[in-house]
């Protein structure tokens, strides 16, 4: 069984990579992939802590996976409908609600 601090460290590194990707990239689909990466990092933290804090952590991971699936479906549908209007998935072209 790998040690707890190694697992939590891997989880934090993956989460940080996801955050950096969301900040640096402009392609909306890649942004979604980075969000999935962050959700996975949190899942890893839940699974790593579940031997100590109870198997409820794994149940939460199941719910997180369900929410991630729904979020991917809705988000990609939004991207498709925006692409029809703007012919682009670059978020610099979606600034209608920004200043």
């Amino acid at each position: 069984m790998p040690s707890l601090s190694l697992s939590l460290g891997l989880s934090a590194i993956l989460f940080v990579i996801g955050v950096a990707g969301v900040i640096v990239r402009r392609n909306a689909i890649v942004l979604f992939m980075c969000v999935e990466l962050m959700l996975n990092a949190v899942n890893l933290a839940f699974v790593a802590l579940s031997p100590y804090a109870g198997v409820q952590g794994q149940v939460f991971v199941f719910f997180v996976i369900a929410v991630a699936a729904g979020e991917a479906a809705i988000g990609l549908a939004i991207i498709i409908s925006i692409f029809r209007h703007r012919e682009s998935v670059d978020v610099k072209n979606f600034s209608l609600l920004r200043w």
Partner: protein
Amino acid sequence: MLTQILFVIFAIIAIVCALMVITRKNPVASAMWLVGSFFSLAAIYTLLGAFFIGIVQILVYAGAIMVLFLFVIMLLNLGNDFEPDLRGAVWKVVAAGSALVMLALLARTLSSGATPAGSAGGPGGLARLTAEHGAVGVVGIPMFLHFGLPLQITGIFLLVAVVGAVVLAKRQV
């Protein structure tokens, strides 16, 4: 000892794949690297004793969600225009700074030597539970006994997501 070595190998694979996801210009390449990251995370879940979650990770993430991503990328025909979409240097500094802050917080938490509170008894307890109820029962029994309402809400959420995705992606509602 063997699980430790395997864990480190899969952790390195996951980190390298995640870095490739955020640095590739081509979204299809990003998606393929993300699949590698998901598979190595599934292996890590299995090493941590969460067998059911590992299988669900492969089925739902590496299977369903990634197929959805690739389907949308190819539907929108994004696989062959490589216009760079990285933000400028200021944003890269912001990203690196936030990454450093979060890693510093992690190092502070880990170095304080706090042990996780809980009464589940560590890895041996989880292995005993798995031997007693099976890999699915470990997750399924608490889910249906104590998380009935969240389970039903998740079902309704998935229904709403399916209907919403159809409504959003349709040309004429």
